[in-house]
């Protein structure tokens, strides 16, 4: 998402302008699943199926009877699978006009206006190595990349490092506790963890740094700043780091 991005794009990734982009359409809510007490995954059936790239997002627009609208962007969590269905994971923000509505009011069968897929920068096309580094809800677009790699039968291409405060804050727990994923707990770790709780460190990332990999970093601003500094310390060139910052949008 805007504002700025660099020019020195890694050759392994698709060039600018090659990502699919879709217009407004109506989507039907198929299901809502709790990921954590503060995050729900909404599965949508699209009227106009568009195969997205892993990492792209959709805009959800709510319209009141008097025409007032509110819209927010949410990353697609599901892998591109040609099914015509997508999953968006929405973190509930207490003052978030859209996220509280999606959490409290929306039910299966409802129709929502959506637009997408959008974004041609923070995408992994399914080839080339990638190190995925997410903080909290920033794991969502990275989960799409991980799921895509697994669906392609190439889980070796990506490694996900996800930082969460406690075990209760981990999205997609059943899929993320396993090979190809490192979970870093900052406040409270599960019993028996070898690593004491604490912020992401360079030695959490260094084992997974490869010279030809692109790093995808997603999370809040302070997480992204810290993670990009750590990646740089671990020898990843800034031209190989792509960042998506989740602002306090609601």
């Amino acid at each position, binding site marked *: 998402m805007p*504002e*700025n991005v660099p020019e020195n794009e890694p050759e392994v990734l698709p060039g600018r302008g090659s990502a699919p982009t879709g217009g407004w359409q109506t989507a039907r809510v198929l299901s809502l699943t709790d990921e954590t007490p503060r995050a729900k995954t909404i599965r949508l059936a699209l009227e106009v199926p568009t195969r997205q790239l892993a990492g792209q997002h959709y805009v959800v627009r709510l*319209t009141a009877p008097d025409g007032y*609208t509110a819209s927010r962007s949410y990353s697609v969590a599901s892998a591109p699978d040609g099914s015509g269905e997508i999953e968006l994971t929405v973190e509930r923000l207490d003052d978030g006009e859209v996220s509280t*509505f999606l959490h409290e009011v929306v039910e299966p069968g409802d129709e929502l206006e959506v637009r997408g897929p959008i974004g*041609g920068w923070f995408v992994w096309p399914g080839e080339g190595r990638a190190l995925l580094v997410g903080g909290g809800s920033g794991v969502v677009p990275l989960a799409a990349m991980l799921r895509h790699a697994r669906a392609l039968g190439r889980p070796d291409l990506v490694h996900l490092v996800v930082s969460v405060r406690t075990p209760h804050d981990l999205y997609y727990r059943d899929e993320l506790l396993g090979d190809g994923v490192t979970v870093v707990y900052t406040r409270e770790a599960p019993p028996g963890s070898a690593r004491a709780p604490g912020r992401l460190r360079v030695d959490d990332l260094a084992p997974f740094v490869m010279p030809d990999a692109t790093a995808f970093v997603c999370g809040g601003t302070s997480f992204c700043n810290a993670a990009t500094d750590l990646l740089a310390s671990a020898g990843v060139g800034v031209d190989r780091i*792509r*960042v998506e*910052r989740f602002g306090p*949008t609601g």
Partner: protein
Amino acid sequence: MAKFTRGFTGRGRARDARLPPGQYDTGTQWPVLTAEATPTLATDTWTFAIEGEVEVETTWTWDQIHALPGSTYEGDIHCVTTWSKLGMTFRGVSVDTLLDIARPRPEATHVLAVSHTGYTTNLPLADVRDHKAWVVWEADGEPLPRDHGGPARLLVPHLYFWKSAKWVAGLRVLDHDEPGFWEQNGYHDRGDPWLEQRYQGD
């Protein structure tokens, strides 16, 4: 007219007239949205250049650009991700002052703003003329933070904020339009928030 969403009435219906359609007031927060690692740029090596279709290609150092007559913008900014921040004060130099020195040639129609990171964004020349655009290094009385494009960014507040290139390095004056980074990635070519020109086709 879009069909309405079941159960949605909306909040904050005493809507501030300064908010363009589809935008909300972020209040005291200033979200950071950037697709790259935040660079550290030293002001003693920083430069700003105007090149291309101009009579006098010109490069300013940090001290030289500060020696030009200063200019202030007081008003609002609007991000395409739907937040707006109202009542801000930015201080720097008007792009008019810089273009008056470089003097665009008659065939010049557009500019491509270029950042020290390599980021680009395109604008019609008219959108950076006539008190519409600045190079700024101060926000609300403080030096512009790195996360927000410091030491200096472009400020084009009448358009969505991705046009206000962070860490700006210069303007390439062109005799044609040349899409910048986000414009090649699905975002609108011009980005007028009052017309909701968010994405291609809006």
